[in-house]
């Protein structure tokens, strides 16, 4: 009836205003509900030289975490190597310090880049990526011929721990490129000048701490108090040395009573004693750079760290400092694992996105990275050890890397690692909080372990958290 023209004009206006708004709303925070179009078209033909079938002319996008190692190794070493073989594949190089912020929307939007160096404090959660099927299964990479020698598989050119640690849901999906070797670091110059010996037993370690303390020259021990993960590392390694590798396996698998086991208790008590007696003043409030710089200034003798230390400190280290590391000393005299047992863990994690446009090129890029030349050049450029066997042979390497490499050689098969903290972020944060308290005397070793056990049980019983086992 009175369908007057002015009313319909209002309707029109209203409709005109709402249509774009509705369209924009649909594209907002919630993920796109339709599964992304499978863009990986039929792969190009494979051959011995091109095992994954890299498509000629189809670009490859690479994102590098611009952290301690910078990004120069990618543009100067890895990418030229890849280009030398595939000149028609355009390599789109990118770098960021904020992997999550930049790339998480790309995953949610269904167009992730091919290769990601998912590292640093702002890395994406591997568990979340694995759970959503975003990680390309890299088993094909392991079984492919190595870049250098077609008769040797990639699998045989890298450390076994890389494969163990990079496996999610039975599929090898994360390639740790750098081998992080953990130990107690000191200056060879300081030890030689003062006649201090590397302690082989825990009693000798405590005696050394006492000697250093009494000498008044420097504090015996420190760690990055603001980041107590630097201390739960030697604590857990010690527990594994006392009770065997299964101690850490139990922790990783969230087993009942894993934290309250006897070896854990022995380790927690030992480190709590160090916390009470031998820490540099103010340790609890200092970060890794501040404590490491204090060591460079000869204010403290020893600190627990990984093999990235030397590269990280290269601007503040005196020329004759001569970094070196020693493994966790013998604790009980009847330790399950021998002297020299080391915690080594691959890091600087590279992934290929399963849902990217060109995962074949991504895998080929990683295969190039694992060539002896690429890995060796990388080692030299950023002074560190890679996971590629023998890559640094015959190259000029710094004292710290030499010491770490020797420790690895001496350890042989006696290496341990843990993964629970990478799998379960909340467990990691609780371990940081509680370890800090243990070292500053706020928690007894018993209370510390009970608290960790409680958190582990909480995670175990939380159905929303995906569980992993090793």
């Amino acid at each position, binding site marked *: 009836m009175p369908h007057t023209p002015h009313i319909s004009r*209002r309707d029109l206006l209203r409709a005109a205003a709402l249509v774009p708004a509705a369209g924009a709303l649909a594209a907002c925070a919630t993920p796109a509900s339709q599964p992304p179009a499978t863009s990986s078209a039929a792969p190009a033909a494979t051959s011995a030289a091109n095992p994954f079938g890299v498509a000629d002319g189809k670009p490859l996008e690479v994102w590098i975490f611009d952290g301690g190692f910078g990004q120069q190794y990618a543009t100067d070493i890895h990418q030229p190597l890849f280009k030398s073989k595939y000149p028609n594949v355009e390599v789109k190089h990118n770098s960021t310090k904020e992997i999550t912020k930049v790339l998480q929307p790309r995953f949610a939007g269904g167009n992730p880049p091919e290769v990601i160096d998912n590292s640093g404090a702002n890395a994406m959660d591997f568990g979340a990526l694995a759970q959503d099927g975003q990680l390309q299964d890299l088993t094909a990479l392991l079984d492919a011929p190595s870049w250098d020698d077609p008769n040797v598989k990639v699998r045989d050119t890298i450390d076994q721990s890389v494969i163990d640690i990079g496996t999610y849901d039975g599929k090898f999906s994360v390639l740790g490129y750098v081998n992080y070797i953990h130990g107690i670091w000191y200056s060879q110059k300081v030890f030689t000048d003062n006649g201090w010996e590397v302690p082989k037993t825990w009693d000798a370690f405590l005696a050394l701490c006492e000697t250093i303390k009494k000498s008044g020259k420097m504090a015996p021990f420190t760690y990055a108090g603001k980041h107590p993960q630097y201390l739960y590392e030697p604590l857990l390694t010690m527990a594994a040395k006392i009770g065997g590798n299964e101690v850490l396996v139990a922790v990783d698998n969230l087993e009942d009573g894993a934290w309250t086991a006897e070896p854990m208790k022995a380790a927690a008590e030992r480190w709590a004693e160090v916390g009470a007696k031998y820490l540099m003043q103010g340790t609890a*409030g200092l970060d890794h750079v501040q404590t490491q710089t204090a060591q460079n200034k000869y204010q403290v003798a020893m600190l627990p760290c990984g093999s990235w230390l030397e590269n990280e400190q290269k601007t503040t280290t005196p020329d004759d400092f001569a970094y070196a590391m020693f493994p966790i000393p013998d604790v009980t005299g009847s330790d399950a694992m021998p002297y020299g047992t080391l915690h080594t863990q691959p890091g600087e994690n590279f992934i290929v996105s399963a849902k990217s446009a060109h995962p074949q090129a991504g895998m080929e890029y990683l295969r190039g990275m694992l060539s002896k030349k690429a890995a060796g050049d990388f080692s030299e450029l950023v002074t560190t050890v890679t996971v590629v066997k023998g890559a640094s042979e015959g190259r000029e390497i710094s004292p710290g890397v030499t010491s770490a490499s020797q420790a690895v050689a001496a350890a042989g098969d006696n290496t341990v690692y843990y993964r629970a903290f990478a799998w379960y972020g*909340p467990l990691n944060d609780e371990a940081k909080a509680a370890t800090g308290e243990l070292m500053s005397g706020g928690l007894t070793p018993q209370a510390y372990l009970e608290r960790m056990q409680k958190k582990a049980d909480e995670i175990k019983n939380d159905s929303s958290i995906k569980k992993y086992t090793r």
Partner: protein
Amino acid sequence: MTLEPRRGVSLYQRYRRGLFITAFLAAPVTLYLIYVISPNLQAFYIAMTDWRGVTATPAFIGLDNFQRLLGDSVFWKAVTHNVALLVLLPVVTIVIALFFAFLLNLGGRQGVSGIRGSTFYRVVFFFPQVLAVTIVAVLFQQVFRPDGSGMLNGPLMALGLEPVGFLSDPDVAFWSVLGVLVWQAVGFYVVLFSAGLAGIPRDMFEAAQIDGANRITLFFRVTLPLLWDTVQVAWVYLGILAMDVFAIVWVMTDQQGGPDWSTTVMAAEIYRNAFEYFRFGYASALGVVMFLFTVGFAILSLRLSRRERIEY
């Protein structure tokens, strides 16, 4: 429904006016809908999914996340810190700011002008407000350093005292955070209260002085009642600040809310769960709870601030 022709015409008149207003409001309202209202509504939906931030098809899990957060001890610790801030931050800031504003405006000999150098102090007090929060946080990390290079511990250690772990001692860290928040907020409220004081007619103070009121009586019997409106505004602002305090905690404290969760707040736990644990669904549920707390606070403060105004 039938409309009479005359009414139709008057409607048309009204629409013309409405159209004019709509033309101006369309753009901002659309932007507001898309970038504020819609994400907020979507958060309610995401809170009921198991979204981990990368999949395109999150599963709907109902109220599981809310049930889970009831048992999340870290989150409830964060809530208690927010509540403590909600009480302490406004009280401490307002008391200090009122005291300074009073001295700067009425603290002089005659009681009608500020103490000597008050214009200079006014500028100095406002400085912290000008600094970005992140800069303040990094600055105070240095101030609170636990060794001899710390601005506070340096002198303490020079006097032969034990250094205080301002950020590393779980019993102290919360108070350090509160201290920084107050330090940064006071300047603004000094200016706000100064403006409020300037709006009060001078003859009121003069009359009170002739009647023999000293500075303390002047403050409690004249200044404060006349400033009550401004104080309420300050209270609401500071309450909001206490609810969404994040940057100082995240940047300044050890382990981002530590040590040992002693300084964490709701916003920090939301951020941690979303961007560190990749539990976007759960983080959204925490966000919904924080939203309810904020709305509750807003209603409460509106109710409590209904008070008769003094006309002058």
